[in-house]
Each structure stands twice: as structure tokens, then as C-alpha cells.
């Protein structure tokens, strides 16, 4: 079957042995690739602890990876989250997925635990494990640099120290950021995976793929959110700073307020002006949303800039950029890190200065003191240890990103029902509630949102499995990506049949979470959102969410899902 290499790599770090395994045809047919592959592959071991030797860490590419389809350079990392205890996947960019596939593998499944620090090196069919005690303590960029021009997935000190929200950093600044999969890698004593491939990727019908690509590109060029004057291509995701501010749904001071007066100090425009940023992007991506300063420093994404800004009461752009750099270098998730420190600030009744923030981030990454050790557990465990779990602004122990749910009710429901916890990307209702894509919906209403969220969850499960970029869907749709998928694989899918696969993946994730004790009671928001108003203006009222309406919508969602 074209679009897949037909084989994967299984590595047992306990024995140091590697195996080539066949990619099952049924896996491709039913679970597409990427996230779908990983969720299915982990399903028989999901009740193991994240640090059990048999718990797999999976790197999976998708059928579009390495082809001419736009945004075809992504891949997924899957395991069980040390932070949320749920099944967890991260979609990640860079060029690792493309190199892995060009090396001849659809996926890598890593199990076992090494007795010493090791790194895995893949050069086409040559796979080796090399001792890496010498890399212990290295930052992610230092680790990556030690593998020359190979694409590299590395953990930093945070992963080594099993910080529950340690990330895996690909190609120096593309993060599998959320959920602590870096700690899974650290528990196996795997410091890095470096890969270089040289084979061409086979495609069934290049002419049809070219036609699909042109349709997608025409739609992207017509999308204000992607290629518009203020779109992602120009400002990166930081383009959202001004918009979310203007909608008064900007999480501020640990979600105590929803407006931060100084947000324009760190807007996308300000960042571009101050750092003279250039565009960079994942392999195969025309959008190039990653912004790099003139001296090579990576600019923070919207979630990061807002959480190190408004959430922590900081308007100093340079301090925010430095916080982001520390997170990338030490290998921790910037959203959870910023939110955990905001939670700490509220509980202690303090305001953390920029210098204290930077110091805390470094300390957390190496668990260097009692406080850092407590904060390395994430906001929920920290707040619970202080007898105030309600101060953690999280769902299923995953800290909420930078969209206050009181300003977008679909987002409120999507946070609650998300299989991986408080995540904006599972259903991404910001698309229609804020960005008006594909059309606008009433952000202050739960009306119809249960079904919209269900459809979007299925859709994004497909997107993560293909493995495409969600931003492309601000312009294109599954209609065009079904064409691209068919032209690559020779399948006969349409948008509806792909959504069926998405539903299959979503339901499997839900079942896996149930196997680990999750119930409907976990599909809930912190109490703050139901009892405290946000920051209203004369024109925009940000009220506490009506709990009865929320529960009705959640109940509708369950009925629609058939649960």
C-alpha cells in the first residue's frame, strides 16, 4: 500500500535489541496513521504505569508524511501521560517524521528501560543504540547539536528528572509539549532519537495529489487566518494575542480575570517588530508559522506568551521570550509550567517576578528544591498537596490553555470532554467561536455545541492521524484532504468515511481512559468558571458559566456519543 512504508521499528531498551515488524494492513485501514496508530498500538498495555518498562513510547508518522500534500511533515508521539494518567498523544512538527519515513519506517515502538543513558540512531536500515551518559544534563539544543544534521528528538534535564510535564523537543524547537511524554522517555533512560533517511516516499497517483494540493493551496491563500495580513504565516500563533484580548477571554492571574491591560506589549506585531522575526516551518509546510528572531531565538507560541504574560501578570516581552527559551532548553511544557506557577502564586498570595519565574523554571526542571519538586508534579498535584485542588485550573490534571471558557462555551464543553484533559486542540472550537471558520457560532451559547464538539473531535482525530496540521483547516477541509489521502494511498475515502475512522479513534481513547478509572465525573471544569464572573466591559459581558446549561450540553454530548 503506498503512503506507508509497510514496516515499523520495535526497540527494547532493556535488551538493546531492535526488531522490524510489519505495519498491519488493518491498522492502516482502521486507524490511518499517527495518533490513530499509537492509540491502537498502546491499547493492550494502557493500564501499566507510565514508567513501567513495558509501557511503550510510540513515534508514528502518517500516510501524507513526506509527500507533496501541504503540511505533510508532522507526526505523533503517543504513550500514557505521567501528568494526566490518560492515554496521550502529541502532534509534532519539524522534519523528524519525514526523515523517519524516508528511513523506511511508519513508526517506532520503544519499550524497556536501559540501565544507562542511551540514544537511538537511525540511518536508513542501520539502527543502533549508543551510550549517552555524556549527554546527561544537556539541554535539548545541546543534545540535538551533538547529532549533527540528523533530525533529533531529545529530552532535556526535565525529562531526565521525570518532571510530570517534561516535553520532547524535535529539531531544537518543535515540541511534543503537553502531557509529560518527555518523562516517559526519561524513565527509559532514552536521551535522544536521531534519524536520517534517504528513500523516496511512494505515492499512488502524483497527478491527483498535485490537483488536491492545488485545491488546498487555493483555499489557504483565501484564508485570512492563514495567509491574511494578520494571519499565522505573518505573526505565527501570537497573532491571536490581540484577538483574544479584544474578546475579553484572556486568562489573567490564574483565571481570576479575563483581561490583561498590557497584552499589546507582547502581541504578534510587537514580537515581529522587536525581534525582526523570520518565518520557519515544518517540513512540507507552506504556512511557516514558526517565528525565529534575527539571532536565532525561537518566539513563543500564543499559549505560551499569554500564560507567561497575562496569567502570571507579566508584560515584559523579553522576560516572556526568555521563559519560553528556558522551557524549550530544559524540556518542559510551557503551558503547564506557566499555569502551575500561576497556581502557586495564587495559593501563596504572591506575584512572581520575571527573575523568580526564570529561576523557578530552571529549578523545576531539575527538581532542585522542595518547592521545585512539588511544582514539578503539575498544578493539580501541587494544589492538592496544599489542600486547595480547586486552585488548579486544569481538567483531568492537564492545565488549561489561553482561552478562558467563560468567553467561549463550546471551548468550555470541549475542555471537559477532551480525552487528554484541558486541551484546546481536540475540538478547537476557537475556530468557529472566535475565528469565524468555517462560519461563526454564538460563543456565549451552548446551543448546538454538543454535536459540533463531537464532530470536531472526530475530525481532529483524523487530522492528527493523517498527520496534517490543524491550522490548514482554517482554509481547507476534509473534502480536499480525503482527495490527497486517496491519491497517496489509492484508497477510496471521502470526508464521511474518514470521520468514521476519527470516531473509532476517539471512542477507543475513551475506553482506554475508562480502563484507567476515568468516569463522566472527570469531564468537568474547575468550579471557578461556574461561580466567578470574568472581566466584563460595557460592550462585552463575561459571566460565570451557567452550570445547568453546561450540564445539559454535556448530557447532550453523551447522548450523541451514545455513552
Amino acid at each position, binding site marked *: 500500500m503506498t503512503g506507508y512504508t509497510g514496516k515499523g521499528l520495535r526497540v527494547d531498551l532493556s535488551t538493546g535489541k531492535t526488531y522490524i515488524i510489519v505495519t498491519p494492513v488493518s491498522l492502516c485501514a482502521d486507524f490511518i496513521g499517527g495518533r490513530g496508530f499509537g492509540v491502537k498500538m498502546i491499547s493492550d498495555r494502557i493500564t501499566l504505569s507510565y514508567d513501567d518498562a513495558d509501557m511503550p513510547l510510540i513515534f508514528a508518522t502518517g500516510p501524507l508524511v513526506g509527500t507533496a500534500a501541504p503540511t505533510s511533515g508532522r507526526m505523533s508521539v503517543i504513550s500514557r501521560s505521567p501528568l494526566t494518567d490518560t492515554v496521550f498523544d502529541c502532534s509534532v512538527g519539524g522534519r523528524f517524521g519525514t526523515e523517519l519515513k524516508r528511513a523506511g519506517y511508519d513508526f517506532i515502538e520503544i519499550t524497556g528501560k536501559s540501565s544507562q543513558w542511551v540514544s537511538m540512531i537511525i540511518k536508513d536500515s542501520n539502527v543502533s543504540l549508543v551510550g549517552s551518559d555524556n549527554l546527561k544534563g544537556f539541554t535539548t539544543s545541546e543534545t540535538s547539536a551533538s547529532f549533527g544534521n540528523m533530525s533529533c528528538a531529545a529530552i532535556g534535564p526535565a525529562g531526565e528528572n521525570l518532571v510530570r510535564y517534561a516535553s520532547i523537543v524535535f529539531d531544537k524547537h518543535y515540541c511534543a509539549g503537553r502531557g509529560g511524554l518527555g518523562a516517559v522517555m526519561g524513565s527509559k533512560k532514552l536521551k535522544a532519537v536521531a534519524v536520517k533517511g534517504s528513500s523516496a516516499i511512494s505515492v499512488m497517483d502524483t497527478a491527483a495529489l498535485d490537483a488536491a494540493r492545488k485545491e488546498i493551496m487555493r483555499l489557504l491563500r483565501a484564508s485570512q487566518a492563514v495567509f491574511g495580513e494578520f494571519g499565522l504565516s505573518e505573526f505565527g500563533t501570537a497573532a491571536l494575542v490581540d484577538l483574544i484580548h479584544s474578546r475579553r477571554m484572556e486568562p489573567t492571574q490564574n483565571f481570576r480575570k479575563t483581561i490583561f491591560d498590557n497584552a499589546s506589549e507582547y502581541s504578534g506585531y510587537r514580537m515581529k517588530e522587536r525581534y525582526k522575526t523570520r518565518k520557519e516551518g515544518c517540513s512540507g509546510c507552506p504556512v511557516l508559522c514558526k517565528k525565529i528572531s534575527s539571532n536565532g531565538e525561537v518566539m513563543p507560541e500564543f499559549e505560551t506568551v499569554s500564560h507567561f504574560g497575562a496569567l502570571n501578570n507579566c508584560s515584559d516581552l523579553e522576560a516572556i521570550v526568555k521563559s519560553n527559551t528556558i522551557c524549550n532548553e530544559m524540556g518542559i511544557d510551557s503551558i503547564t509550567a506557566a499555569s502551575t506557577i500561576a497556581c502557586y502564586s495564587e495559593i501563596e498570595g504572591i506575584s512572581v517576578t520575571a527573575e523568580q519565574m526564570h529561576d523557578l523554571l530552571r529549578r523545576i526542571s531539575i527538581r532542585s528544591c522542595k518547592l521545585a519538586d512539588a511544582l514539578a508534579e503539575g498544578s493539580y498535584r501541587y494544589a492538592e498537596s496544599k489542600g486547595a485542588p480547586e486552585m488548579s485550573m486544569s481538567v483531568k490534571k492537564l492545565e488549561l490553555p489561553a482561552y478562558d471558557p467563560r468567553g467561549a462555551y463550546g471551548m468550555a464543553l470541549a475542555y471537559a470532554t477532551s480525552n487528554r484533559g484541558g486541551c484546546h486542540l481536540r475540538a478547537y472550537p476557537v475556530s468557529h467561536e472566535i475565528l*469565524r471558520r468555517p462560519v461563526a457560532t454564538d460563543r456565549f451559547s451552548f446551543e448546538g455545541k454538543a454535536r459540533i464538539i463531537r464532530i470536531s473531535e472526530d475530525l481532529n482525530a483524523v487530522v492528527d492521524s493523517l498527520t496534517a496540521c490543524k491550522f490548514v483547516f482554517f482554509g481547507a477541509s476534509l473534502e480536499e484532504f480525503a482527495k490527497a489521502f486517496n491519491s497517496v494511498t489509492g484508497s477510496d475515502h471521502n470526508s464521511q468515511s474518514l470521520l468514521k475512522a476519527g470516531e473509532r479513534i476517539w471512542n477507543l481513547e475513551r475506553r482506554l481512559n475508562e480502563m484507567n478509572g476515568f468516569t463522566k465525573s472527570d469531564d468537568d471544569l474547575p468550579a471557578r468558571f461556574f461561580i466567578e464572573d470574568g472581566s466584563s466591559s460595557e460592550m462585552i459581558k463575561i459571566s460565570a458559566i451557567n452550570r445547568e446549561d453546561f450540564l445539559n450540553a454535556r448530557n447532550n454530548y453523551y447522548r450523541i456519543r451514545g455513552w
Partner: protein
Amino acid sequence: MPATTTTGYEAGKDKMISHIEKYTAKLVNQGLSMPNEVTMMLLDADISANRPLDDCSPELLGVFDRMNINSLLFARPAEPYWTIINFLLEHNDKGARSNKIVPQDCETRTFFHDIPVIEHFSSDEIYEALSARKSVIIRNRGIASWGHVSLEQAFVSFSSTCFSTYVKFFDDMLQIFSQDNADEQTAKQLNLALGLLKPSIPDFTTSTLHKGSAKTEIEALMMITEAGKAVVRHRLVDSFFGNISVFLNEKIYISQTGSSLEELETCIDEVPIDGSSSAGITASSELSAHKNIYLTTKNKAILHGHPKFSVIMSMHAARTASNEGKCNIFGMPLVSGDIGTGSRGIVNTVPPAIKNAGCALVCGHGVFTASNDDFNAPLTRMLKTEEYCLKECINILRACCPSSLTKFLPNLYN
């Protein structure tokens, strides 16, 4: 007919129904269908519809059951759209039954690619077609379309299907007649369509809008809202085909992307012209063209819409003119209509034309008009251009018509 719902909690039910009633009214008010010809269904946990579910076709309910969507619209288009669509189907067939219509206007090419055609009003066929496209034409029955976020998507797809087939019909006719390929049957079809055309023709009597340039933000918002209602009321465009802006105090006030022109009250973005805020990420996708016009001219108000005959004649002119850059229609320069920022993109082609002529006709796309104060002149210019294009279209068809067939083309709209 009152909308109904199966079950569901009260507050939700009322809102679902009002949503259905809103879009049913839009279809009717914009001359796209008749109330008793419309089936509109919206699904959350329960189905709401504009008629009792027992009266909804089981075939449509079957489609709804199988698709992962939240809204479904089926309607027979009003005249002249339905006659026009049927002609296109017959003409397309040429011996074999055609399974799609491929319009050439800019919007449809970008967002629709093509429009599938199916033979039977069956769940299976409708499902297959709608699984791959946003709308489908069902022979002898009507148009079906869907949404996965809102009924608005289904409405826009239905409206776009009517618009694009209308434009294609007249564009095809101009080609057939000007290439001397018309036969009696074609002339009769054209005559039939022309006889039914009136409901789709704009009201060309001019309106008086707010006079003078905006002096306050509130005035700017009011002017945009008023102009939006006017272009829809005149039937120059359907709800979603255009964008409008005012320039005041170094800020552009512009309709948001995908906003309904007759409902702009809460859908206007404020965009600093120096680019210092990216809150305009939700502004119309043609913001950059508006911005470049304001940067290079003294205009204070810009109106953009997609009147049908202006689009039709722009395509005809581009095909027949030897040099597009020097071509103009009714004093309006014709420019290329690529979407985006390339050299032939409207962001680069429209501003110079506006600077020189105060207006521009974008090939296969629509009209830009501007003024240095209010919307009176832009609206009048758009109306006059559309009226001219309608007459010119018919004049060309008559002029190209073989003498043996002129009896089939009465002297309409002169």
C-alpha cells in the same frame, strides 16, 4: 410552517427553531426558494426541523442518520434558478448523463471545485455526493447541502450553487451565441430563462444613504451597517457575497469574514492601518485590498460585492478582450481576480484601478467601488454597472443571435 423539534430542553429548542426560521426566511426573502419547497433540519442531541418530522422525506432523514453533520437543507430553487439549472444539466449531458457542473467564477472554483449531479432522490446517492462535496443537484428535485457547524453553511452552499449556476448559464450562452453555435432549442431555453429573470434582477432605483464622511466610530459602524442592508435589499448580492469598509482616524472599520451583509451590526472589525494590532485576523479576507486602496488613494468608503451580471460580463470581457489590462466595462477597469497576494491577486490589481478610475471590476469575482466620503456614490455605481452589464449581456446575445432565432429573444430589459 412552524418549525418543530422532537425532544430537547426548552431553551435549546427555542433557539434551534429560531435558527431554522431565520435561514428559511433568508432563502425566501432572497428569492432563492419558496417556503413550501424548503426542508431544513438541524441536529444537536435531537432533530429540529421547519416542518413536522413525519412530513420530512425519509430519504433526507436517512442522509442525516448516516452523515456526521449537524444541518441539512433541501429545497427546490425558485425561478429563474431552477430553469437555469435544468438547462445546464441538459446542455451538459451532450449524449451522456453528466455527473457534475463545473462553474468558472472565482468563488466557486476556489471553494466548491465543482457541483455534483445525481439522478435519484435517494439517501444513498445524496449521501455519496455530499460526502465529497458541499452541495448536490438532484435532477428534477432540487439542491441539497449541509453544515457541520451551523445551518449557515448549508444556506451559503445552497446560495452559492444558485449563484454559480446562474453565472455559468449566461456565460455559456454568451459563448454559444458569440461563437455562432446557437440552435433553436438553446434560443428557446434562453428565452424561457429571460422570461423568468425578473425576481433575480436587482431593484435599480437608487437609494439614499447617510451623507458625508464618517466623523465618529459610531457613524462609521452605522454607515457600514446601512450599506450592507442596502446591497442585499437591492438584490445586488445575496447575504454573504461581499465586504464593506470605512476609513476613519487611521483605522479601517471592515465587515468580518463570512459575515452576512444585512446583519453587520456586531460583525465589524477595527483594524489600525499601521498594522499594529492583529485583531483584524477575523476581518474580511479582502482586508489587504481595502487597506492598499486607503493607503494609495483619498477614499474613505469601499463597497465590494458580487452582482451576477457584473461577474458574467467580466468573464465575457476577459475572454474576448485582446488585452485585459486595457479593457473596461462601463468605464470600470477590468482586473485579474486571483485570490491572495500574488501579482495577479486582487490585493495588487484592485488598488491601482481604484486610484485611476474610482472603481474596479475583478474578473469572475465582482465589483469594487469607492468614494472619498460616503456610500451613496459607490452604491449607485454598483447598481448602474450591474444594470449596464445586464443590458449589455442581453444585447450581445441578441446581436449574436442568428436572424432565424431572433423571434425567440424578445426585447427585454432595454
